[in-house]
């Protein structure tokens, strides 16, 4: 099922502001999402994960602008096209039907003044205007059942639901049109671990049934390792490493990835030695030259401050399907 790309992000650049004032929050990101896979996106706060997610669907609020790149979408059986080149009308039709998004705060994602049913059906109405009202309601009920909420909560207002229920409603809503891609931006950070597991479990189960692809964003690496097929690590607006989850966990190549993994105390197994990442995240307005991680990197050596490492397949024969941007592992085949 994997292998076929569904979404290709090419050289995406996203800025906040214009001209000299611009903050380059996402730079030259290349990423391919394959059909049916869960792609994890990790990195610490401010590394540009959300910006990337919003940017590829053009949902960034002002002053965000997309300053370059393209996002090629491959509809099943259709001709691929660039999402960034769609007109407003086309984009509206594209949204939700092809890519749905689940945002971090479910409380704020649901319109407080409309009932759940309204919010579930209006998206169906917008995209499938020919469907009868009854069919829409039926579909909405089905979606609720799918995410484990009793359909008699249809007529509730968001504030009448608990945080977990709201989040599940959002997931249900995201799946209502059976999109190819679901982007989830920290969908569970506000929730309890118990609840978090419950919801993610449900999601994975649904993916198995419906076959959509997921971009899953969080900075909790241990969560990602457990849940995703592939993981991309972001740092300072760039992807610094990308690999299958297991590979990344066992053998992170980029020092930043190593640092991230070393920061998590493990609950089980032998007590590991914890090594944090010294220093603080870079200021996007004044990025370090060369590799932006070099000021914090314990293994930095002479090319690091000077030249930017390119994301590519590392030389070392460490198994296929992984890329890294680090001078320790110079690229054999650059991506993009």
């Amino acid at each position, binding site marked *: 099922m994997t292998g*076929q*790309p569904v979404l*290709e992000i*090419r*050289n995406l*650049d996203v800025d906040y*502001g*214009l001209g000299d*004032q611009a903050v380059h929050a996402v730079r030259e990101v290349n990423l391919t999402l394959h059909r049916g896979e869960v792609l994890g996106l990790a990195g610490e706060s401010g590394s540009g994960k959300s910006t990337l997610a*919003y*940017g590829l669907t*053009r*949902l*960034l*609020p*002002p*002053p*965000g*602008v*997309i*300053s*370059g*790149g*393209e996002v*090629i979408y*491959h*509809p*099943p*059986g*259709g*001709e*691929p*096209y*660039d999402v*960034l*080149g*769609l*007109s*407003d009308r*086309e*984009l509206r*039709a*594209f949204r939700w*039907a*092809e890519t749905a998004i689940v945002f971090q705060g479910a409380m704020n994602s649901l319109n407080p003044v409309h009932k759940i049913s309204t919010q579930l059906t209006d998206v169906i109405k917008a*995209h*499938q205007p020919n469907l009868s009202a009854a069919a829409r309601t039926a579909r909405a009920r089905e979606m609720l059942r799918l995410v484990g909420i009793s359909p008699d909560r249809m007529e509730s207002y968001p504030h009448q639901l608990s945080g977990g229920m709201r989040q599940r409603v959002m997931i249900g809503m995201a799946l209502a*049109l*059976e999109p190819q891609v679901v982007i989830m931006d920290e969908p569970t950070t506000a929730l309890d671990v118990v609840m978090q597991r419950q919801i993610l479990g449900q999601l994975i189960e649904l993916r198995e049934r419906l076959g959509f692809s997921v971009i899953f964003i969080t900075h909790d690496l241990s969560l990602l390792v457990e849940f995703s097929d592939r993981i991309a690590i972001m740092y300072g607006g760039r992807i610094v490493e990308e690999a299958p989850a297991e590979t990344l966990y066992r053998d992170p190549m980029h020092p930043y990835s190593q640092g991230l993994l070393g920061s998590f105390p493990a609950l089980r197994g032998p007590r590991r030695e914890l090594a944090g990442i010294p220093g603080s995240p870079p200021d996007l307005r004044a990025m370090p030259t060369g590799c932006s991680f070099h000021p914090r990197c314990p293994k930095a050596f002479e090319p690091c401050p000077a030249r930017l490492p390119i994301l590519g397949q590392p030389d070392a024969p460490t198994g296929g399907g992984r890329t890294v941007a680090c001078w320790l592992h110079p690229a054999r085949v650059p991506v*993009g």
Partner: protein
Amino acid sequence: MTIPTSSIDQVIPGEGAMAQPDTAPAAKAKRQRLRFVANGKAATGLIMLAIYCVLAIIGPWIAPYDPDARSNDLLAPPSAAHWFGTTHLGQDVLSQILVGTRGVMLVGLTAGLVATVLSVLIGVTAGFLGGAFDEALSALSNVFLVIPALPLIIIVASSFTTAGDVVVALTIGFTSWAWGARVLRAQTLSLRRRDYVEASRATGESTWRIILFEILPNLTAIIASGFVGTVIFAVMSEITLAFIGISSISSWNWGTILFWAQSQQALAQGAWWWFVPAGLAIALLGTALSLINFGIDEFVSPRLRSSGKSKVKTASGQTVRMRVGFTPVLASRPVRATQVARSYPAAPVSNGKVNGAHVAPRKEEVK
């Protein structure tokens, strides 16, 4: 004559500010305090206000004539000698406006000050102490809020035997604190629960120090906005009182000028110069204060800030408006994807070329 509802409302949009306790501005307060002045609207407003303040001080000296002095140019239209024309007694309207500025500013500022002090005292105490105290004080301010202010001011002002500037200012001040108190109470209530207040309590700070040094500084924007709002209201009320002949102000103010113009039926006599300058002076003062308020609003709620440019040029030379929901795309051409393929020839689109004319398909077509 009503307070522009927008002014204070926006500081706390509904209960919004309470719902999202820690927004960026709180964290960046100090730096932005200066940026507030850099705000275009606020700066314009402040400059205008400064001019008014200067006029309030030096007005009587730079006035070309004694505002009471009669001349033989009865009801003369604007001329070189009398820029704003004269009244039915041959008094110089310009001089009256200049001399009248002081009274207006004085009453406005005094009333604003009184109302602000009251609203801070009542609002912050109620919000901080809570309990029965809070219930009583908020009931009080709610009552004052609901009781219509202008009629009340008219009735009260007309009840004083010597309604001088001070009395008018105090009357206005004492009847118009309620709105500010309510806003401040709500804000204090949310501040009181902030960690830094709790933290300073845990450090062992005394209650009054917490109110004065931890809470009040964080309310400055709201207090300032309330102050400006009340000043607008006070100026309008004062002018109204003078205009309908209720306040017995011996000195000139713009309302007095309008009163004379109205009672001498300046309109019927075609003496537009008699009431136009005073009205404009009021309107411009009001505008200045409103602008300052907008500045404060934008400072408090950064979303209201118009972020520099609102239009961007894309690579193809098209101008696109920045807006929510549709992020502008600068580099790739906005129209057709075929051109994308051409400018990035390496794009490894797996099955053939990118079809530029392709429109996002409907769901039905996909299935």
